[in-house]
Every structure is written in C-alpha cells, then in structure tokens.
C-alpha cells in the first residue's frame, strides 16, 4: 500500500526528471483540438439533482395491490416466496428500489436520471438508506464494501428481490447489502439502528418500481409531463411580483428549462437559473467596470429573499439558504466565488 503522504511530502520526492518528462510528453504528443475526454464531463451533465427533504408528508404507505413483493433468503437455500402480481420491470425500467414498510417515513430523496439515494427513517434511531446506480460502477462499490471488514470479506450471500446479493455488518445494529445489477442497475440498502433480524425483515419489504412507481411514493404536488412550461412561467411570474425586471436584458425567459416533476427540484432549477443569470451579469459588469449594470444586478439579487418560490422551498431543504447566502455576499459588496458550482448554474 502506498504511504498516505501529504502534498508537501509528495513535493519533496525526488521526481524532477519524471515530472518534467510527463509534462513535455503531454504537451508534445497530444493534439490540441478539444478531445472528448472520457474522464471529464461538463458542468451541466455533472449537475446533480437537489436533495428533496420530503419531511412528514411522505409516508410510504403499503399499497393495496403490491406490484412486486420482495423476498430475502440467507445462504441461498430457501425458496423464494411467490410473486403476488406482475413485475413492472418487464418494461426494463423497474430497477428503482423503494421501502414499503409500515411506520417508515421517506425523509430525503436525491434522484438523478439513473441513480438515486433515498433515506427512510423510523423514530429517532432507525434509518434505512437505499441507493441505486448504473451497472458500470458496481465493481467499484463492491470492492469498497469488501473492505468493511478487516480482513476484507466478499460478504455473506443472500437473495434480495429475487437477485443474488451480498451482505456485510458494520456492527451488530448496522448492516448493508449490495444487490447484483439487474436491468443495468445495482442497488444497495443499509440499515442502522436494528439487529440483523430486523434488517432482513426490512429487506423483505423492498419493492422494485419504475419511475412512476417511485414518484407515487413521494408526496403530492408533482408537475405532470407537458405542464412544465406553464409551471416555469408561474414561478417566474411570482418572482416578477417582487423583482422588475425578472431577468437581465440578454436572458430570455424561454431559455429557462426544467424537466423536473418534483416541485422542489423544479423550483431550484428556475430560481437557480434566475439567480445565476444575475450573478453572471454582476460578474460581467464588474469586469467591464459598469457600475450601473452591477448595481442593477445587486438590486435584483437583493429581492431573492422575497421570491415566492424560494420562500415555499425554504422549509424543505437548503437550496434557498444557499442562494440567499450568495445574495448576502452580493449585498456586502462582493462577487461570490464558486457560485456556479454552488448553485448548479446551467452552462
């Protein structure tokens, strides 16, 4: 294993020839044109979806007609229990995993196009974290989990939702399992604050769902497909009730887009785009030495604490606070650093 050196110690290593040769090799041997570097993505594609605290409204009630009941067996010896009804995964979309157990509340959900992290809670001490992601990252995660124990362990074989999985214990009341990829996605479920029997009982209450099934477990108020444009216009109209103009002159309202169905996500997309536009305007005005433009941008950002969409979102998560933090820096006379990353500005 390599020693975990500090950067200062790395800087003191006698590597000058190798370091210089690599620099020259990169500069000399690589075409200058823009390459589609496999390791890098642009800001837009790296932008993640916002954490959605669903608070009390998101009780995940047991459905009257389960789409797919999970089963869990240990050691691969027990027979899976019968499937109650049709597996919605026939469409290839049912790789999303939800917990369907009485008393458990969905607390947060961070959902992206092909991955997600959901947190369920029961009482003060019990938490279940559900995660899924694309197949190509499975081996990475598996190797990491194999190091939960010392010495490393491949984990105990179990079957979850009809698929082979492996289970590890962080401690007597803290377990996790990784389910092998199915339909291009693997899943992990970690339960803390319960013993092994309690954890396994919860694994048996998992369900595979498609996107619609996932959304059905969320609270109400989702924006229907086809209604996004209208919802965005409504949010901009609300901002316009306290800010005039809503956007800098060179930014068209029609350029603001979002395909988010969750109102919190949608609000973050729209309010974030407006704030980003004004922060960009402020930065450009400062660079141009245009005090009037800078003042107009600062005035617009100062209204953000009264934007209805942010006030509605404020109790549900941190996005509004983060945005207002940047507005406060502007009010204090500075151009905030790193706001494009912090707010996830559209590129």
């Amino acid at each position, binding site marked *: 294993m390599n020693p975990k050196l500090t950067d200062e110690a790395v800087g003191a290593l006698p590597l000058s020839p190798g370091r210089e040769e690599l*620099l020259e*090799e990169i500069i000399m041997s690589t075409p200058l044109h823009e390459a589609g*570097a496999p390791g890098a993505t642009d800001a837009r594609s790296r932008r993640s979806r916002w954490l959605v605290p669903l608070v009390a409204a998101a009780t995940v009630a047991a459905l009257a007609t389960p789409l797919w009941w999970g089963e869990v067996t240990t050691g691969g010896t027990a027979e899976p229990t019968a499937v109650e009804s049709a597996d919605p995964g026939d469409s290839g979309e049912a790789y999303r995993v939800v917990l369907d157990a009485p008393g458990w509340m969905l607390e947060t959900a961070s959902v992206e196009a092909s991955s997600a992290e959901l947190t369920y809670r029961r009482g003060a001490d019990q938490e279940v974290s559900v995660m899924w992601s694309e197949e190509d990252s499975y081996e990475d995660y598996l190797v*990491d*989990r194999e190091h939960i124990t010392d010495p490393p362990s491949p984990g105990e074989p179990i079957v979850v939702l009809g698929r082979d999985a492996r289970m590890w214990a962080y401690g007597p009341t803290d377990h996790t399992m990784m389910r092998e990829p199915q339909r291009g996605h693997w899943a992990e479920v970690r339960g803390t604050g319960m013993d092994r029997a309690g954890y396994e009982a919860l694994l048996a209450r998992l369900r595979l769902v498609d996107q619609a099934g996932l959304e059905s477990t969320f609270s109400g108020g989702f924006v229907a497909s086809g209604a996004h444009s209208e919802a965005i216009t409504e949010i901009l109209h609300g901002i316009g009730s306290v800010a005039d103009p809503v956007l800098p002159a060179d930014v068209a309202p029609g350029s603001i887009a979002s395909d988010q169905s969750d109102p919190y996500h949608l609000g973050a997309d729209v309010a974030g785009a407006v704030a980003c536009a004004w922060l960009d305007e402020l930065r450009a005005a400062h660079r141009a030495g245009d005090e009037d433009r800078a003042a107009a941008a600062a005035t617009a950002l100062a209204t953000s604490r009264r934007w209805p969409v942010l006030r509605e979102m404020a109790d549900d998560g941190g996005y509004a606070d983060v945005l207002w933090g*940047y507005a406060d820096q502007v009010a204090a006379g500075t151009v905030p650093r790193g706001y494009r990353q912090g707010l996830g500005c559209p590129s």
Partner: protein
Amino acid sequence: MREFPEGREQEFRRLYAAYFDAVLGYALRRTERPEDAADVTAETFLVAWRRLPHVPPGEEARPWLYGVARRTLANHRRGERRRSDLGARLRRELPAALPDAAAEVVQRADVTAAMRRLSARDQEVLELHLWERLEPREIAEVLGLTTVVVRPRLSRARARLRELLGNEPEPLGHDLTRHPIAHREEPT
C-alpha cells in the same frame, strides 16, 4: 469557456506546476501501487490538457482535477488498461522515490483503520475533507454533487468516525504555515 491570452501551453504549464503534487498526492493516497498513482496522474493531466478551456481558473482548478482523478481512478479499479503510454519515467521513478516509512502522512493508522469501517460514501467525503482539506463546496465539485447533499453527508460521516474512535481526528502532516489552505465559511 476560457481563453488564454498568454497561450494555451503556458497556461497548462502553470496548472501542472501548481497542482502536480496535489494530483499525485491524491492518487498516491488512494492506490495500492505507486505505478497506479503515476498512471492516474498522467491521465488526469492529459485530460486537463485536452480540456483546458473547461478547467476553472484559480483555486477552483484543484477540485476539478480531483474530480477527473477520481473518475480515472475508478477506471483503474475496473481494470481498464491505461489509455496512453505517458509518464513511463514517472512510473519507474516513483517506487524508488517513495520512503518506506513516511513521517509526513495525512493521518494516523488508527484513523485509517476506523475509516475503513465506514461506507465508501462516508469514507470518500471524509478523505476529501481530512486528506485534501476541501470544504463542502469543493467536495461537492469533486463528487458532482451539490453542497446541499454534501453537508449532511460529511456531518454524518464525521459523527460516525467520532463514534468509532471516541474522538474527532485531527488531520496530521499538513503544515498550514507552509501550505496555507483557505477555510472559507460556506454560505448557508
């Protein structure tokens, strides 16, 4: 997209000089073999060279480079072959250059052992916080997340580590007077 009045090559040389130690350090702290760390470093800077107009200016380049290194590392862990033959000399030099028992390490062995008992997600945010001294905004940039997601994750991870160790570990080995690192308070 950035432009380079002094020339692209000059800009890259500056970036390389400023962050080579940081990228190689990041890679060394996460790989088993020095040769792998050399490969990750070479590929990370190759990506930076090719995508130089996309590299953020100033200190924000550091988390951007870590983000690239992180994905390169993931490719290595999947057993992908190196994409280039760059850095052959660095690959040869690095094993011999590494001290057997380094005095300047980022943390105590017991902290490393405790961190291994955390989930990979918790480990990763803690490593970026304790080893790279990144603030939540920068960790978010490396991981492709937002600060809203990173803050509670880091907080939970620190709490779990405290439970395992019985105290809060202090990062070791960084002489802040030699290598000042800004600790700006995040807007909240």
